[in-house]
C-alpha cells in the first residue's frame, strides 16, 4: 500500500472534517448517522482503490475517495434520520449514489485530461436536485444556538482553514469569495429579502438573514474545504481570485430569489458547479491578464478556428456532459424558488412525515 506523505494537504483536510463530524455527532445535533458517514467514506475509498489499482497495478491509500465520501456525508441528510440514530442506514442508497456519482464525474468528465468538477460538490448537487426535497436535504445553515459547541466548531473551521489553505495557497481565493459574498448578502438583507427554514418560526430577515447566510459555518466549510480543492480550482493566483469572485457572484445571483433554506443551500453549492465548468476559461483569462500587452495567447491552448473547436467540443462526450451539468444545476436550482413542496416542508406543513 502506497501511503500519502505526512505533508499531504488531504490528510489535514480529512482531520478537520473528521473533527467536525465528531462535533456534529456529539454536540451539534447533525442529523446524520455514524453508519451513513462510514458507508459514504467506505464507498469512496473502495472506488478509488479499485480505479487506482486497475490503472497503476498498485494499492494506493485512497485519500481523495475518503475525502469525497466524508464531504458528501458532511452535507447530505436523508429524511427521517435524527441525531443519535448512530447506526441507522436510513436512506443509505442516497449517500452511496451521491458518492458514486461524485467519483464518476471525477473519472469520466475530464475534458482537458483533468477532472473539471469538485467531486463531492457535483455529487451533492445531483443528489439534492434529482432525488429531491422529499427524501434528502442539506445540512442546515444554522448549526445551533450561539453556545460553546458552535464556538468550538467555528474555531475548528477557522484554524483548520488556515492550516489547510496555507500549503495550497488558497487564502486569496477564499477572501475573493467571502468579501463580495458578504457584501451582496448584506445588500439582500438590507433590501428586505428573507427565507424560511424548518428550524425557525416565520421568515428570517434583516441581520438574521445576513448572519445565517453569509456567516454560516456551512458557508465557511464550503469556501475553505470545498472550493479550495487545488485539483479543480485554477492554478494561477489571478485565476483563483476570479474563480472565488465568480462563485460569489453566481451564488448571490441564485440566492436572491430563493425563499427557502433548501434553495439557498443549493444555490451556494450549484454556484461552484457552474464556476468549476468555467475554470478552463478562467485560466485562459488569467493567462491573458498575466501576459505582456500585445502578445497573442491562444484560448485553451487550441489554435484552431472557433467553428472547428465547437464541432470538436460537441463530439467530446466529456464536454457535452460538463455542459449539461453546468446548465442544469443552476436552472434547476433557480426553479426551486417556486417549488411549493420545498416551501411547505420548510414551513413544517407536511405533518409528521416532514422531510426535514
Amino acid at each position: 500500500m502506497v501511503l500519502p506523505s505526512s505533508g499531504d494537504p488531504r490528510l489535514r483536510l480529512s482531520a478537520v472534517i473528521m473533527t467536525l463530524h465528531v462535533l456534529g455527532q456529539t454536540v451539534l445535533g447533525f442529523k446524520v448517522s455514524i453508519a451513513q458517514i462510514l458507508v459514504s467514506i467506505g464507498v469512496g475509498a473502495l472506488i478509488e482503490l479499485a480505479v487506482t489499482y486497475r490503472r497503476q497495478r498498485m494499492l494506493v491509500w485512497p485519500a481523495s475517495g475518503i475525502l469525497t465520501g466524508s464531504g458528501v456525508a458532511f452535507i447530505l441528510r436523508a429524511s427521517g434520520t435524527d441525531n443519535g440514530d448512530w447506526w441507522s442506514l436510513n436512506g443509505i442508497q442516497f449517500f452511496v449514489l451521491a458518492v458514486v456519482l461524485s467519483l464518476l464525474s471525477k473519472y469520466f468528465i475530464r475534458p482537458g485530461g483533468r477532472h473539471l468538477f469538485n467531486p463531492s460538490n457535483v455529487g451533492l448537487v445531483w443528489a439534492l436536485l434529482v432525488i429531491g426535497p422529499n427524501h434528502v436535504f442539506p445540512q442546515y445553515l444554522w448549526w445551533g444556538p450561539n453556545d460553546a459547541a458552535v464556538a468550538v466548531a467555528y474555531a475548528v473551521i477557522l484554524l483548520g482553514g488556515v492550516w489547510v489553505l496555507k500549503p495550497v495557497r488558497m487564502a486569496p481565493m477564499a477572501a475573493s469569495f467571502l468579501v463580495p459574498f458578504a457584501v451582496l448578502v448584506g445588500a439582500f438583507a438590507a433590501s428586505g429579502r428573507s427565507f424560511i427554514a424548518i428550524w425557525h418560526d416565520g421568515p428570517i430577515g434583516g441581520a438574521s438573514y445576513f448572519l445565517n447566510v453569509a456567516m454560516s459555518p456551512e458557508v465557511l466549510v464550503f469556501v475553505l474545504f470545498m472550493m479550495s480543492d487545488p485539483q479543480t480550482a485554477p492554478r494561477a493566483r489571478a485565476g483563483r481570485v476570479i474563480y472565488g469572485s465568480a462563485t460569489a457572484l453566481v451564488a448571490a445571483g441564485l440566492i436572491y430569489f430563493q425563499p427557502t433554506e433548501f434553495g439557498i443551500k443549493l444555490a451556494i453549492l450549484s454556484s461552484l458547479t457552474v464556476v468549476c465548468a468555467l475554470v478552463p476559461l478562467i485560466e485562459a483569462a488569467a493567462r491573458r491578464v498575466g501576459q505582456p500587452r500585445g502578445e497573442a495567447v491562444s484560448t485553451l491552448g487550441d489554435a484552431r478556428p472557433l467553428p472547428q473547436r465547437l464541432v470538436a467540443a460537441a463530439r467530446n462526450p466529456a464536454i457535452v456532459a460538463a455542459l449539461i451539468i453546468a446548465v442544469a444545476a443552476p436552472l434547476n436550482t433557480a426553479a426551486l424558488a417556486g417549488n411549493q413542496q420545498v416551501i411547505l416542508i420548510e414551513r413544517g406543513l407536511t405533518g409528521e412525515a416532514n422531510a426535514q
Partner: protein
Amino acid sequence: MALAASAAMGANLFGMRDRLLGSATPEARPAAVSRTADGSATTPTVITEPQETVLRSQPWWQRVATLEGSGPTTSAPFTIDDAAIQWRVVWRCESGNLVVREPAASEPLVDANCPGGDTGYSTETGPTSLAVDAAGPWQLQVEQQLDVPLVEPPLPAMTAPGTVAETTGSFYRMDQSGTGVVTIYRLADGSAALRLDDFFVTPNVDLEIHLSPLEAPQTTDEFLSVPSVEVAPLDVTAGSMNFTVPPGIDPSRYRSVVIWCPLIDSAYAAATLVPAQP
C-alpha cells in the same frame, strides 16, 4: 443520455420525480367549507368557493345526513365524497331489531338487537341510500371521514354589531409545527368565541385548544407549571375554524392559546395573545 434524463428529473419535468420517488405533498384537493357535507352547519357571512390545497388535516368526521323514523323505510339518496377515507352510520334504536343496508352491499351496515346504539362502517363512495328494516323507533347519523382542511367562514355573530375582536396572536412551534392566527371575540350577547385562521398544527388525534395564563410558554413543562382551561377539542388540524368558548371561561384572564395533546402530554404549539387592532 443518463445525465440529460437526470437533469430533466431534477427539474421535475411533467412531475417525473414525484411519480418515481413520491411527493412531499399529496395532490391538491378542495378544502371542506363546513362541518356538514351540504353546508347547512354554516351560515356564511361571505360565500366562498372551496380552495384547492395540498395541506392535510388529521382525519375528521363531517356530517352527511341525519335520519330518523319508526319502522322500515328507504332513505333519500345522499352522496359520500370520493375523497372520503371511510364513512360511518352512528345508530340508536328503541325496540325489536335494526338492520341497515346499502343497496349494493352484501353485508348489512347494522344488524343489531334493540334497544342499543353503536356504529357501522363502510368505504364505498359515491351516491347511495340506506334501506332500514326496523320494528320500532330509530335514529341514524351518517358521517364521512375527510383529511382535507376545513375552511369555515367566520360565524355571523363574529361580524355582528356589538361584537369586538378582543385579542389575537400568531402560533409558534413548541413540540411540533404550528402556524396561523387565533382571534378571540367578545360577542354582542356577552359570550366569547375563538377563530383560527390559516391554521396548521402537526396532525394527531384528540388534540385540544387550551387557554393558559402564561404569556409565551416555550416548553411542555412550562405549560404544565400553571393550570390551563380547555376551550374545545381540535378535531381538524388545518384550515380556518370557529369555536365557541364555554360559559364560565373568561378569555380575558388568559394570555396565550396552546394546542395540547393529552395523549402524550405534549404542548404542540402556542400563540401569545395581544390586544386586537380595532
